[in-house]
């Protein structure tokens, strides 16, 4: 049985890109359907950003309690229950997906559950249990997201080799874990398991962990992670794993040596691929797929007029906040609003919620140099900041990079406590195109960690006061 329904806009996928697109389109008066086969909220709310932050909060609290002596407090018999920790994480996730359901309802977006497939430029078929719905609309936005990538020789099986989803809901803590890949996801899981005394090893193919971050950040993070007990092996490849009865033996190959090491579990965190399969793209020759992502222009138009794609499915950086902004730009362009500008890729902050946290925006120092900028670099350490010392968090620094010609803030890189909450200051500065002068004259409250952001800017121009 097929039911027919007509809309102005159909959105395939209810993750951060999809649901935000749906809400914005509804605000603009469009009649919107959002098709989702699972819970709304996507990976972010269900299996990504949010539940991992809940897990990491538990890790942070546990870490703090274990280091509580320096605050003049003693605690003994400190216990944790991994089941309760995971339950809390799932509850948090549930609370938020309920919130998204409410928002869609409030904005009168039709949420249609089922698997959607685009069958013509204006038609999308939603397969439900024993029926289907034929939706038609002038425009269709694909927001099907992405999933973790497997390696040729190592694939997640949910039992021994985990992807992020498996790693978020362990039945019990393993004694040891091999994390393959040291991007944000790998590093966050490493932090979590390490905090609960699991023996963690990170293997990274490139010459440093967190390879998209500034080199100094990578070096500093590596030092602290190692100090906290994480084993880090860079310039190395996990050639193969051998799943045995009681353990997994991994063959780790570096340029000049081979290590064979045994682990209880493996976490695959080697990247992301777009969900481009089984959504009907084969019906459109004009829609190009490149490295498992849909190719789009700066306003998210695919090669097929009337069909757009946003969020993780169009490529890196795979970040919810990027997806949400793409959603708004795409929808406003569809609705023909004035003054809709393409997303500034250099204005997207990135955050890693390890201990310590890492946050950055714009170019790294070497990227800036390679692009030919004449730069000024400022740096200010946590250990010279009064608030950081009072908090007992003296590890970390704030680094800023300016174009010495124009005074444009071209990059900012931070590592240390709560820096993920601080980076937005630089996001605003970048977005309104502040120069160093504007930042010099901005008053940062004392005593706060944010003062380091000011001092780092001052330092770039040899004006720092507190160092």
């Amino acid at each position: 049985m097929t039911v027919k329904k007509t809309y102005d806009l159909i959105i395939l996928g209810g993750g951060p890109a999809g649901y935000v697109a749906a809400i914005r389109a509804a605000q603009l008066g469009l009649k919107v359907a959002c098709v989702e086969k699972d819970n709304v909220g996507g990976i972010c709310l269900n299996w990504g950003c949010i539940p991992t932050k809940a897990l990491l909060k538990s890790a942070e609290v546990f870490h703090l309690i274990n280091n509580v002596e320096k605050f003049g407090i003693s605690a003994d018999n400190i216990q944790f229950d991994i089941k309760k920790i995971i339950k809390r994480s799932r509850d948090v996730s549930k609370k938020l997906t309920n919130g998204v359901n409410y928002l869609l309802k409030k904005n009168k977006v039709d949420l249609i559950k089922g698997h959607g497939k685009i069958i013509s430029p204006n038609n999308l078929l939603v397969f439900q249990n024993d029926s289907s719905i034929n939706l038609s609309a002038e425009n269709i936005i694909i927001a099907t997201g992405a999933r973790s990538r497997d390696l040729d020789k190592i694939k997640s099986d949910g039992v021994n080799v985990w992807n992020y989803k498996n790693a978020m809901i362990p039945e019990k803590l393993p004694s040891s874990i091999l994390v393959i890949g040291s991007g944000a996801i790998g590093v966050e899981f490493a932090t979590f398991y390490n905090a609960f005394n699991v023996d963690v090893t990170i293997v990274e193919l490139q010459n440093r962990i967190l390879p998209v971050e500034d080199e100094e950040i990578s070096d500093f993070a590596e030092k602290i992670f190692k100090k906290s007990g994480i084993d880090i092996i860079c310039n190395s490849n996990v050639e193969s794993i051998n799943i045995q009865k009681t353990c997994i033996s991994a063959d780790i190959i570096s340029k000049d040596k081979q290590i064979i090491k045994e682990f209880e579990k493996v976490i695959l965190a080697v990247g992301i691929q777009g969900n481009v399969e089984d959504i009907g793209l084969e019906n459109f020759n004009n829609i190009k797929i490149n490295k498992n992502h849909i190719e789009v222009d700066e306003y998210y138009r695919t090669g097929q007029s009337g069909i757009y794609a946003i969020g993780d499915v169009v490529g890196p950086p795979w970040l919810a906040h990027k997806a949400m902004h793409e959603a708004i730009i795409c929808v406003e362009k569809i609705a023909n609003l004035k003054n809709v500008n393409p997303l500034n890729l250099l204005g997207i902050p990135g955050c890693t919620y390890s201990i310590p946290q890492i946050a950055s925006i714009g170019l790294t120092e070497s990227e800036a140099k390679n692009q030919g900028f004449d730069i000024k670099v400022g740096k200010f350490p946590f250990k010279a900041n009064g608030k950081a010392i009072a908090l007992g968090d003296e590890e970390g620094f704030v680094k800023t990079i300016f174009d010495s010609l124009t005074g444009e803030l071209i990059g900012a890189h931070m590592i240390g406590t709560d820096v993920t909450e601080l980076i937005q200051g630089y996001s605003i500065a970048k977005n309104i195109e502040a120069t160093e002068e504007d930042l010099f004259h901005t008053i940062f409250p004392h005593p706060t960690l944010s003062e380091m952001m000011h001092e780092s800017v001052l330092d770039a121009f040899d004006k720092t006061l507190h160092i």
Partner: protein
Amino acid sequence: MPISIKMPALSPTMEEGSLSKWLVKEGDKILAGDVIAEVETDKATMEVEAVEDGIFSKILVSEGSQSVPVNKVIALMLEEGEDEKSIDKFDISNSEEQNISKKTIEEQKSKSEESIENKNSKLEKTSSINNNIDKVLPAKVVKIDQGLKKVIASPLARRMASQANLDLNIITGSGPKGRIVKNDILAYIDKSDNSNQVKNISEDFINNSDDYTEIPNSNMRKIIAQRLTQSKQEVPHFYLTVDCIIDDLLSLRKELNNRSKDGKFKLSINDFVISAVAQSLSKVPETNSSWSEKSIIQYKNIDISIAVALKDGLITPVIRNANHKGLAEISNEMKDLIIKANNNKLKPEEYKGGTFSISNLGMYGIKEFSAVINPPQGAILAVGKGEQRAVVIGGALSVANVMTCTLSCDHRVVDGAVGSKFLTQFKEFMEDPVSMML
């Protein structure tokens, strides 16, 4: 006792000013420092601040009033707690209305938006003037309108523009609320790099600086450059040319001038051209229009800008409602405007907001030429020299006084047929000038 607010002297030579806008309403509570009104002089628009706290009680000079003498009481304010009745008792005899003409705000607004002229060049002096007059002002002047639209730009865009020596006024912003952002500056530089042969030429010269004198660009020159470049880049020009036989016009001119024994008027050929253009525009109003993205704006008034050459540039004073004015009136007004223009004394309303332009190079001996449209106007008429030429009339060769006129049209507004209709009408009036007096 009520406090009287007087028309401030915004410059040492200022005798009168226009009250362009009240920014407060009767009954508003105001604090010292609040901006209460905008006053326009021939030099600039300035904001007027209240110097005392109180209740803004009564407006005596309404918005849009022009030629308000300095020190005339323009409004009354009550001190805190003072009774409103005291207003009635207050002697405002010194503020009798004196020939204050009214203009709608809309009119003023639209005209200031269209302003192109050289207000900027005059502004250079105003900061020092301000310092001198601050102490004696009954109301304080706080801000000077730059003469062009207020520029909104990001700090980075401002710095990049100043480094590249760009005037932000000429750059269109793509940011929120039209803010000029980094990309706009980059795009502008990119565009001008691609098309900037002039720059290359000047770079060639820089190698041997003995060969030239560098003349810094005045603000007027910059505005001419900006506006006319914009016009040639954005406005799709096309040109229509007619020859007008003006023998009848010349003899009518002679006859009329002979009647002016007391020297009350002396008509020039250009005065006839202005009148003929004005009458033709009223017959073909499509030519009296501007392009905008949303719609074509067809003007109800016929306000004709006439290009007047100055020592360091040109300015276009406006004969307003020229279709309702006789030749003598046009002629005298034109003479007055030219004198003012040469003495840099044109008031903004005298050179802003024309709806159609005339450029006449006849007096320089130019036979014919094409003029650049003065945006946002939709057309400009280029007038050549009236001279004796051989013409064929009714199959026979004869000699006649002929003047070649070329209409430049913005094709977005004026199509070929419309332009032709206008020119045909214009030619008719020029060749039979008595008919335009009908």
